């Protein structure tokens, strides 16, 4: 059963990933991105990472892509003219380098890549959510808190940007 599901999820993920950048209508691109995220969530499920599966759907599919679509629908972008930026060659090289690096890492992972501390048995015994909680709040507590502070900074920045400036009362002297 697992190989069947794996090939389904991975093939659709690749297809949706290509469509995300290739489709002409931005809203359709957003929907392709949604399909991609849902199928990657399916891959997590096959790895017994059920917590990541659900969090992926709640956070990415449920909140972030909704906001993307929200903006795209409001703007109603016209994409009849499709021109490449005149310096696209530079970006192409950078993108190729990053993709190549990722591909290298992905190809290495089955043989000599990084291995986690938690063996499969431990995860299966207590469940993925338990394992993730223990790891985050023991080993990676500092990093977790740093991310929290970053997010708080982002929220404060968003509030400052979104706040309508109030007219300053200039007292006549």
């Amino acid at each position, binding site marked *: 059963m697992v190989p069947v599901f794996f090939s389904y999820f991975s093939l659709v993920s690749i297809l949706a990933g290509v469509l995300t950048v290739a489709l002409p209508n931005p809203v359709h691109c957003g929907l392709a991105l949604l399909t991609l995220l849902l199928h990657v969530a399916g891959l997590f499920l096959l790895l017994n990472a059920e917590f990541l599966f659900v969090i992926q759907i709640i956070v990415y599919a*449920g*909140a972030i892509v909704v906001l993307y679509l929200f903006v795209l*629908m409001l703007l109603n972008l016209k994409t009849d003219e499709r021109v490449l930026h005149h310096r696209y060659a530079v970006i192409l090289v950078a993108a190729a380098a990053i993709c190549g690096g990722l591909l290298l890492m992905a190809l290495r992972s089955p043989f000599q890549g990084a291995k986690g501390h938690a063996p499969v048995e431990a995860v299966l015994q207590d469940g993925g959510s338990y394992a993730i909680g223990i790891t985050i709040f023991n080993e990676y507590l500092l990093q977790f808190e740093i991310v929290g502070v970053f997010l708080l900074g982002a929220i404060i920045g968003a509030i400052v940007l979104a706040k309508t400036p109030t007219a300053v009362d200039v007292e006549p002297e």
Partner: protein
Amino acid sequence: MFEVGVKIAVSLTQISIVMGVVLLTVMFLTLAERKVIGWMQDRMGPMEVGPYGILQPIADGLKLFFKEDIIPSGANKYLFTLAPIIALVAALVGFAVIPFGPNMRVDVFGVQVQPFVISDINIGILYILAFTSIGAYGIILGGWASNSKYSLLGGLRAAAQLISYELNVGLAIVGVLLLAGSLSLVKITEDQCCWIWNWFWLAVPRGGGVPIPQILAFVVFVISAVAETNRLPFDLPEAESELVAGFFTEYSGMRFAFFFLAEYANMILVSCIAAALFLGGWNAPAPFLQFHGSLEHLAWLSGIMWFAVKVYFFLFLFFWIRATLPRLRYDQLMRFGWKVMLPIALGNIVVTAIAAYFFPR
């Protein structure tokens, strides 16, 4: 191989029973809503079809089934078709993890099955949250694909409202999850065994001890649940007086019926969650209020009955609120969600976490 076959057969049976009960309840709810609101407004409600109008849902269903199916010109045909399906599937899929009765195991041809929950997965409540958030796409896409201004505005309002109130739903249940120490609805319900004060709205520990009541979270959850199901007084995505019918303005026939079914199925789903998380699920308010003694083997029946009573109480609450309160303005809705509900939910998490640390259960 035989075992897999039995498991699939059992699951399919459970799914068809649950689907049947849910869809029957939806049918009954459409009538109940019109009747209850009618009585509250000193009217009779539907009276024409059948005695006291009890056959009205069947007449409504037939009407919708035979109506012409219109796709507006300029609409995106595929997304227009897909949207109601997404909405309905997302609403029905959540019932898979709801425990309708006691957690017992029955032997069917040598395979252990849990008869009263389709699938007892250890992330049950998160699974429901995930799929209700997928349901939002049905509404947004329906609004966008209709190629109509009213629909689009309704869809966008729905998106903003769902995201705002989903957050409150998610935060309101954290307190309960802290107390139960589990994400599985079966375990959470089992934890609230025995007396009415052991349920998580008051949360007195079973052996006595310091109670950590979740009544604030309960109130936040119920209000946010009303908002999440787009019901009055939070029905801005489909406000008749402003947007004709909101995101389903252009829908007709069975596609419209799908949105309708999805809304009512969502109502039942959030009622089930509220009952399971805060009001003890299938647990009776007191041990002597369920079948015991010589009727011990029928205890599951009283469990299901208590669960149904709690769910119907919430469904009645939905109608009651609808008949009582006027619709909020859009800025009031957002302010209420972000400035009132969110701080209460966050405060509840902090207090519950500290209390649960000092008084472990």
